[in-house]
């Protein structure tokens, strides 16, 4: 199959019925594999990894903090992609997928902020600092809240999809900043990237990196968070499609008397 044919077949999923049928088929795989990865990864990390010589047992927070922070940013980037599809191709499923993903992003950002504060208190001596990465994450969290509020505030779904898509474009600056803030501004309490850095993974650079003892269970937790995110997006998009259909059917019923 050529690339153009593959791209064309991808648009078939813009059909709500096709999307629902496919997601029903693949959802059990994503739910089960996400559950397995999370249970094994978190159990491995919590029970079977040693304390860090500097951070003590608080290093075990990494298995929740890093995957949640990663998904908080990537969730917004997924919303950006689906919002662009809506703005360019006007496929309703893509707008509904962005809407369905936003509450997941809120929870991921909240977990990253909460575990960061709980971890920061004993390590930095403070729950919060106006550090570039922490501040950009807080702004990203506020953007998520604003995004959900905007969807709820506008009655016409197409207008809501248009406006939230524009908000998503603007918020992407903070999503990218929250990922790369530590590289732009070399100040603040938060350390630089020590996990998802090419050199850290391959061992080709000499900067501080996470030891393999912690890295492997962490990788499993990251995979678990990604799979959980995919499962939730599929499931919640299906719910949004059904909610939209109910509204349409009730409107038709009212017109017909």
């Amino acid at each position, binding site marked *: 199959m050529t690339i153009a044919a593959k791209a064309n077949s991808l648009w078939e999923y813009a059909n709500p019925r096709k999307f629902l049928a496919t997601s029903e088929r693949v959802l059990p795989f994503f739910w089960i594999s996400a559950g397995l990865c999370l249970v094994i990864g*978190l159990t491995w990390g*919590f*029970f079977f990894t040693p*304390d860090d010589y500097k951070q*003590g*047992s*608080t290093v*075990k*927070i990494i298995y*929740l*903090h890093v995957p*949640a922070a990663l998904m908080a940013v990537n969730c917004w980037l997924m919303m950006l992609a689906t919002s662009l599809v809506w703005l360019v191709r006007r496929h309703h499923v893509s707008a509904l997928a962005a809407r369905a993903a936003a*509450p*997941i992003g809120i*929870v991921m950002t*909240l*977990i990253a902020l*909460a*575990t960061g504060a*709980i*971890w920061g*208190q*004993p390590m930095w001596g403070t729950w919060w600092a106006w550090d570039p990465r922490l501040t950009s994450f807080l702004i990203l969290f506020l953007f998520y809240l604003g995004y959900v509020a905007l969807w709820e505030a506008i009655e016409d779904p197409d207008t809501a999809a248009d406006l939230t898509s524009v908000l998503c474009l603007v918020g992407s600056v903070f999503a990218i900043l929250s990922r790369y803030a530590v590289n732009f501004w070399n100040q603040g309490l938060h350390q630089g990237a020590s996990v998802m850095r090419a050199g850290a993974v391959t061992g080709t650079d000499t900067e501080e990196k996470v030891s393999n003892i912690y890295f492997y269970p962490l990788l499993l937790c990251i995979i678990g968070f990604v799979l*959980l995110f995919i499962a*939730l997006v599929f*499931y*919640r998009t*299906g*719910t949004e499609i*059904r*909610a939209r*259909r*109910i509204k349409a*059917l*009730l409107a*038709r*019923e009212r017109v017909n008397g």
Partner: protein
Amino acid sequence: MIPDLGKYADTVLWSYVVSIGLLIALVAFSVIRGRKMRAEMEKVEQRMSRNG
């Protein structure tokens, strides 16, 4: 059962309780709303097909 977490036991346990609690709440709310919408859609579709 729980490993010796030393003086940071509260810090680590609270992180896990808060995070896992939030994840379970997210999945639970999503599934409850999903089931509700599925049931409601079936009800409306059946009513409309009965009424022609």
